[in-house]
């Protein structure tokens, strides 16, 4: 194999750029939250580790999400929206019961994005998967494609929406990882609530930052995505499923 001079310079240049640029940018990213005019970048990938051993029989995270993002039901469980829900698992052989929150797993290869005919489902540069409701036509393909049943269709007219979490009839919605809070340098509402409540079952952070809290937790013990067989490299991982 022989490389032309141009190719060689290209590779070398890229490598040098990688060495010199990456540490500088990372320092910036550690030092402060993004300012409002800065776009989200691939320098980060937001993730969540949920430790089921610490997860109690409560729904603080669900309540916090509802309050933060202003979604609510109409006592119609089949169609009510659910950005995050508690799922109870029972081992039929031993009778052991555990409960865990399930939300959009912010897949690296999101099936919802693959199937969306309009481009409304998309993944932001920092790995957060969202629905652009301006574009969504409500076809619900993404709901069928999502292996985690993470998405909901809004069947009813909406009221009292939050300015940062618009939602409307005829579109699909799901966990945004509290993107408005993340953009402001804060952690998602569910994580904050769970931490405040003392359970500390959720850790949020940047999966691309080797020094982030979440990466230290991930390195310190076993964890798994739900349905690892699907190879979606989810941003949300679980410990103790």
């Amino acid at each position: 194999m022989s490389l032309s001079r141009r190719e060689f310079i290209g590779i070398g240049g890229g490598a040098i750029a990688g060495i010199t640029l990456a540490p500088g940018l990372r320092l910036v990213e550690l030092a402060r939250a993004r300012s409002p005019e800065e776009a989200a970048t691939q320098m980060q990938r937001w993730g969540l580790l949920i430790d089921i051993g610490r997860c109690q029989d409560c729904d603080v995270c669900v309540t916090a999400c509802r309050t933060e993002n202003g979604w609510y039901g109409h006592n119609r469980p089949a169609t009510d929206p659910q950005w995050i829900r508690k799922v109870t698992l029972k081992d039929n052989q031993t009778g052991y019961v555990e409960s865990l929150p399930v939300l959009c797993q912010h897949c690296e290869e999101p099936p919802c994005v693959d199937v969306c005919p309009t481009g409304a489902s998309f993944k932001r540069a920092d790995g957060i998967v969202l629905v652009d409701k301006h574009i969504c036509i409500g076809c619900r393909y993404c709901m069928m494609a999502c292996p985690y049943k993470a998405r909901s269709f809004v069947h009813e007219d909406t009221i009292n929406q939050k300015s940062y979490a618009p939602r409307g009839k005829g579109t699909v919605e799901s966990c945004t990882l509290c993107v408005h809070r993340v953009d402001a340098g804060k952690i998602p509402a569910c994580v904050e609530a769970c931490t405040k409540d003392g359970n500390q079952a959720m850790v949020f952070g940047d999966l691309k930052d080797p020094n982030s809290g979440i990466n230290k937790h991930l390195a310190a013990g076993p964890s798994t995505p739900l349905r690892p067989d699907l190879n979606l490299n989810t941003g949300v991982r679980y410990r103790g499923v």
Partner: protein
Amino acid sequence: MQKIRLMVFGALAVAAAGWLAAAPVLAAETASAKSAIGPVIKTYKGDKCVEPTEEMRRNHMKKILHQRDETMHKGIRTRKYSLKNCIDCHADPKTNSVLGENGFCESCHEYAAVSIDCFTCHSSSPEKNGQPPKAASTDPAGLMEKTISSAVMGTTNGNQP
């Protein structure tokens, strides 16, 4: 030829001046007679918009559309051209909304017969978010309230004092 052009221009200028002079009368009429034709444009906060009124009348939708994509897809959350900023300034303190018969957005869109799609998803009220809704508690004397008629739309700075 040159002379004729000048004359035409002069005539137009006179007509325009007459029209502008008539505007306050029309405005007064609109304020008194509720059934008068034309949108009711009121502003409540600040003394000027983020861009000149002319620019906003013509192009507000382009600015909001651009900002919407920047925010949604890139996470750029500058305030200037955000819908939130529009609502915070233009919501009627009585109804706490930009909608309704005399609402800033609705009255004009109704008049122009252009449906607004924003508020099926977006809230039409300013965000309280810890801070009290500024407009609601202001004393009425401090309110800058201006009513203009359709005749003035697009010719004067009806949005500004």
